């Protein structure tokens, strides 16, 4: 057999013939010889990293813990508390839905809440994350495309869907009874509490350049459980009326879990005595009790809390960081012992 003389090895040579004609290219890619870095997870490389990480986690955990400790939270369950159980009984009967009912809740604040104070309403056992509930909304309608309205008894409903229908409609008035002087109404800012993008882009009223909101919503009906139509949610402020009402927007952002809180308002700190937060003393909340919860064995509550950049009273993250730091340190120590005892592999291989 005659050998074809060796052709140059690098690169593809055209026009070969003979037994070497179909030899694959001698390129780095095709011969699997690409330049590469081959790291290895050995004790030498990993141990310093573990120690460093455990230190960082420890520092972070401690810092976060200190940050969280500086927040204060007050929770009040008012489902049946005090005078509210009359309303609770009343709301058991859905034919009373149109009748208002109010009750009061008295509570003390022992230590002043310094800084910005946030007022939340909370629900327990209300599954806003149920699939059919979450599907039951029309984002197209809420963004102002009027032609997406759906039919019910001949008139389309605005806003439609179960999410909007079940909007939380209790309202609260907070009063401060200082040791000196008369009772002062605690001013709460009820606007600007939703996501900027929600308020300004995702939710838009149907086009009403030269019409009032009432005219824009002409030909629609209010949702079944509502007591007033959507264009009367805040008649005094056109930027908070209709679909772009802050309360509605906040409610429409479905919570992830059955026990949740939603923002109701922020303390307005321009005037005395609230310039530094909520002073200590007795407070009264006057609740307009509308939302019935006994159908789903739920509870309602009111939460007052101060926040830091890190959020409210949530001890999970600092504790998790501290735990991770301890575990990492433990692992690092075990690894060091193992590495020391059983030989620094690679140096004492012949043992």
């Amino acid at each position: 057999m005659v050998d074809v003389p060796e052709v140059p090895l690098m690169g593809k040579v055209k026009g070969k013939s003979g037994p070497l004609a179909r030899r694959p290219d001698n390129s780095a890619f095709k011969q699997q010889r690409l330049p590469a870095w081959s790291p290895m997870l050995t004790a030498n490389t990993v141990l310093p990293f573990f120690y460093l990480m455990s230190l960082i986690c420890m520092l972070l955990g401690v810092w976060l813990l200190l940050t969280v400790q500086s927040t204060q939270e007050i929770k009040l369950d008012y489902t049946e508390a005090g005078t509210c159980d009359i309303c609770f009984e009343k709301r058991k009967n859905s034919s009373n839905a149109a009748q208002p009912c109010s009750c009061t809740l008295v509570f003390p604040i022992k230590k002043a809440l310094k800084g910005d104070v946030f007022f939340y309403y909370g629900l327990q056992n209300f599954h806003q994350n149920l699939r059919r509930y979450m599907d039951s909304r029309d984002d197209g309608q809420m963004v102002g495309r009027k032609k997406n309205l759906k039919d019910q008894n001949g008139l389309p409903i605005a806003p439609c869907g179960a999410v909007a229908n079940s909007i939380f409609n209790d309202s609260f008035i907070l009063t401060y009874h200082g040791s000196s002087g008369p009772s002062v109404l605690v001013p709460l800012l009820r606007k600007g509490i939703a996501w900027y993008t929600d308020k300004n882009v995702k939710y838009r009223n149907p086009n009403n350049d030269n019409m009032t909101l009432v005219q824009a919503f002409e030909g629609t009906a209010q949702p079944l459980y509502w007591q007033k139509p959507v264009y009367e949610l805040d008649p005094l402020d056109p930027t908070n009326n209709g679909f772009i009402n802050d309360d509605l927007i906040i409610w429409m952002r479905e919570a992830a879990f059955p026990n949740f809180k939603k923002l109701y308002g922020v303390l307005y700190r321009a005037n005395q005595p609230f310039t530094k937060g909520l002073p200590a003393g007795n407070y009264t909340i006057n609740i307009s009790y509308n939302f019935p919860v006994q159908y789903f064995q739920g509870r309602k509550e009111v939460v007052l809390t101060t926040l830091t950049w890190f959020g409210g009273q949530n001890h999970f993250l600092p504790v998790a960081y501290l735990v991770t730091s301890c575990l990492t340190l433990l692992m690092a120590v075990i690894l060091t012992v193992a590495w020391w005892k059983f030989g620094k592999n690679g140096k004492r291989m012949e043992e």
Partner: protein
Amino acid sequence: MRPTQEDSISGNYKEIFLEICRNCSAVLCCRMAPLQKAQIVKLIKASKEHPITLAIGDGANDVSMILEAHVGIGIMGKEGRQAVRNSDYAIPKFKHLKKMLLVHGHYYYIRISELVQYFFYKNVCFIFPQFLYQFFCGFSQQPLYDTAYLTLYNISFTSLPILLYSLIEQHINMDILKKDPSLYRDIAKNSLLRWPIFLYWTILGVYDAIVMFFGAYFLFDNTTFTSNGQLMTTNTQMMFGNWTFGTLVFTVLVFTVTFKLVLDTHYWTWINHFVIWGSLIFFVVFSLLWGGIIWPFLNYQRMYYVFMQMLSSGPAWLSIILLITASLLPDVVKKVIWRALWPTTTERIQNADKLYKGQLSEFTPLASLHAPSKAGSHRRGSGNERNVPNPRRLWLKRDKRSRTIRSPKEERDNEVRMMKKAAAAVMMRRMALK
């Protein structure tokens, strides 16, 4: 050894023959008809452990044997193309079998076993949080992640890294694999796809999923988990909802499974870098785009701005970093401990390669690197540790010290000299003991 009466009547010497063959390291059969070749292969295939058989041949008479064996290799030889046409793999010369088996076969096994295990792992990590979420959403089949994420997870976000891994990965240098056939024992008997390893990957997946889900759960549940922003401007403390929760879990998920592959990759070419970091960047860019505009043709806008809001929150970043770390920690620890206490032959060779930085000379006996570790060596099939001191170890020490480049003839002479010396030393020791 005589067969029993019935056996000899029916001519059934198969069991005895098989028994004898299994006790030999090599069996030579000559003057075999094609059918008999196939029968031999069948006999071995049916023996007790059902081994994987390989048949190699170059002529038409080898065809039945090639077809019978699990892996049939044909040699393009002088006797025509019959064998090649019926084979699974075709090579031009017999000598190529060595590289094909020891290098390519070994690589493909490593790659495919990692591919299979990783695929199951990443899908367990993907779906288990959704399963856990059902306990909190009233068992109503509410998906945790948005539909776009559900669709694209296996297609775009996590597919390319493992694909490129399974094409390119080289856990040990090719030359070392060629030189030391005993490394093949590490993967013998399908060792990387057995139940213990598969269970390990599955449990790791379940653990990661639990960490991801409950880590995010405790962050969200009943707390005022918000994004930070200045008050009284348009971005006041915002509430996070269901889709933000799902997106947080999904972000941790994508980064965790990709970093798991990062930890498993031993051979980092530019392609690996490109694909891995590219996939992560693609995920981020896609999320930004998907939530960035009000899509005109969609009726639901539930992801609008969710990703950006999540990223603008300090606690979200901290928890992402923590959850990724917590998910990957056990695997890293396991790897390092196993490597330190019970290294496989493969890992020892990797150590040696790193130590000598590729300067292992052509004639360094790698047997000397198979030193049994103190803590025991009962790993994946590599049970060939010898406790007798290897006389050639002396030679390795010498090599380490000198490190000069010698010509092959010099090396060979050296080898012979050292072997004689070592043999003499052993003799002396034996005589001393007597």
